[in-house]
């Protein structure tokens, strides 16, 4: 690896801890970021010559803090006192002592606070995600703009606005109590899942551009889990992200059209990610404190464990969706459950199950896609066609529309001789 490559990797991995500590110190996001940037510039000069420090984050915090204090002094046009004047060249000697003082005591809450600030409830989801990617992950505005398919100027503005809101929000800097910490964790896990979904829901020509969002979300989840090793819901979140992302290479065909789970080439699933995901669910289950992420991860695990689509344990998936309905009642969860029900008890029962959802999901693409599929399985082709037409009208991406059109084409072919093909299921 070249000098710059390993320094980049070291700076990226040290970033959350360093910015988190600088934020606690300066209580201002812009100052903390700037201090970190300055420390990075010095690292780029110093590290290739002296080799990497044993504790890169400690080094960056120390240097960042001193440079920022010097700047503040200079701005106030004050004469620095001689004994306070610590030049950068002294820092390497001081490093070990500082690293000792900076040890783990604040580390967890610094990073959690940094993440939590990004998902402040006053911020709309899009701003939360952009802020977290900028501040915690350290992606450039250009990279974030690209992932969100907006101009750099628009993204710059979005991030600036978000920062201004956060500055007004007065997030407390004291070490949080247990209740507050748990509330922060819940907000942060939700934000990480949002980042993942931004990447995961992309399709077609944008899928490749947006995939880094999934990887970034996994990195953040891993960071969080390392801070809170015994939280089963964080294990669940991490497992869910890994198990879903493991299918990334198999989810799209050469033209960028979505390939459904049943039709994916399972040999292209990433077995290393699946292994890690399954290991995490095993660990989470032992705590016997279930939660929505764990249940969703368990569902993803049942898919991952099936070597062929017909090996899928749909009965268990039906039960897990039932549990999820109790924890997080939502028409979308019921819709997903109906797919499992259609496999276990047939499309007729499933169709009945989703009928009451119609008013609430009247503008939801997947509702009509699923309804059309059930109707098609029942041989009610005219009704299926109506549902599919509606789905196409509601499709969010060209890949979604293309997928439904495939069903319609099949209906056309099937209905050419006759229109009353009865499904045997």
């Amino acid at each position: 690896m070249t000098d710059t490559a390993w320094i980049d990797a070291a700076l990226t991995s040290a970033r959350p801890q360093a910015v988190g500590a600088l934020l606690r110190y300066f209580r201002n996001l812009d100052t903390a970021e700037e201090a970190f940037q300055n420390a990075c510039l010095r690292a780029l000069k110093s590290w290739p010559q002296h080799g990497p420090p044993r504790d890169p984050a400690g080094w960056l915090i120390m240097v960042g803090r001193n440079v920022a204090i010097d700047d503040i002094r200079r701005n106030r046009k004050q004469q620095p006192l001689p004994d306070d004047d610590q030049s950068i060249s002294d820092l390497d000697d001081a490093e070990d002592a500082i690293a000792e003082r900076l040890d783990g005591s604040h580390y967890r809450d610094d990073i959690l606070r940094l993440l939590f600030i990004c998902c402040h409830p006053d911020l709309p989801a899009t701003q939360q995600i952009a802020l977290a990617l900028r501040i915690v992950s350290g992606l450039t505005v250009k990279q974030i703009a690209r992932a969100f398919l907006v101009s750099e100027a628009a993204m710059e503005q979005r991030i600036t606005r978000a920062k201004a809101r956060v500055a007004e929000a007065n997030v407390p800097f004291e070490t949080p109590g247990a209740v507050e910490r748990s509330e922060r964790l819940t907000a942060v896990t939700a934000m990480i899942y949002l980042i993942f979904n931004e990447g995961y829901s992309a399709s077609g020509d944008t899928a490749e551009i947006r995939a880094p969002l999934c990887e970034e979300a996994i990195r953040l989840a891993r960071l969080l889990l390392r801070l809170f090793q015994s939280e089963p819901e964080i294990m669940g979140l991490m497992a869910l992200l890994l198990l879903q992302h493991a299918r990334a290479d198999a989810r799209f065909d050469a033209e960028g059209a979505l390939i459904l789970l049943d039709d994916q080439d399972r040999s292209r699933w990433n077995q290393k990610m699946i292994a890690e995901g399954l290991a995490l669910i095993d660990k989470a289950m032992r705590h016997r404190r279930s939660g929505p992420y764990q249940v969703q991860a368990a569902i993803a695990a049942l898919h991952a464990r099936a070597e062929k689509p017909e090996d899928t344990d749909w009965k268990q998936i039906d039960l897990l969706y039932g549990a999820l309905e109790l924890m997080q009642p939502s028409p979308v969860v019921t819709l997903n459950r109906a797919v499992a029900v259609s496999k276990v008890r047939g499309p007729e029962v499933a169709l009945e199950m989703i009928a009451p959802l119609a008013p609430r999901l009247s503008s939801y693409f997947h509702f009509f896609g699923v309804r059309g599929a059930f109707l098609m399985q029942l041989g009610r082709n005219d009704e299926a066609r109506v549902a599919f037409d509606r789905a196409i009208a509601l499709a969010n991406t060209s890949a979604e529309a293309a997928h439904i059109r495939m069903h319609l084409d099949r209906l056309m072919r099937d209905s050419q001789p006759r229109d009353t093909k009865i499904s045997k299921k």
Partner: protein
Amino acid sequence: MLYAILCYHDEDFVGSWTKEQDAAVMKKLAVVQDKLTKQGRLGPVARLLPTTSAATLRKDDPPVVLDGPYAETKEQLLGFYLVDCKNLDEALDVARDLGAANPGGAYEIRPVGMFAPGSTVT
């Protein structure tokens, strides 16, 4: 004598490698491994999944299961090699070669007292 070369590195740092950087390091390590394999000196090699997937059984009475790795350290045990070497110097040479392919972190070199190859798992 059989030596274990235990690989310690900051897993956040290794985890922040891009896919391409990771693949490049693995490719360089494979060159070192191939050389040892040809000399008939390379035993099992393992790269471990991140410590977040680890659980630890403390052998108290009754045993307690803890989440996470055994030790919270700045650098984590991320993998190991078993290599046949005449002496410590030779083992250090192997570690240096591996270190040149994958800089940063540390290798702990420990002579193996007992080795059971077990059945061949894949």
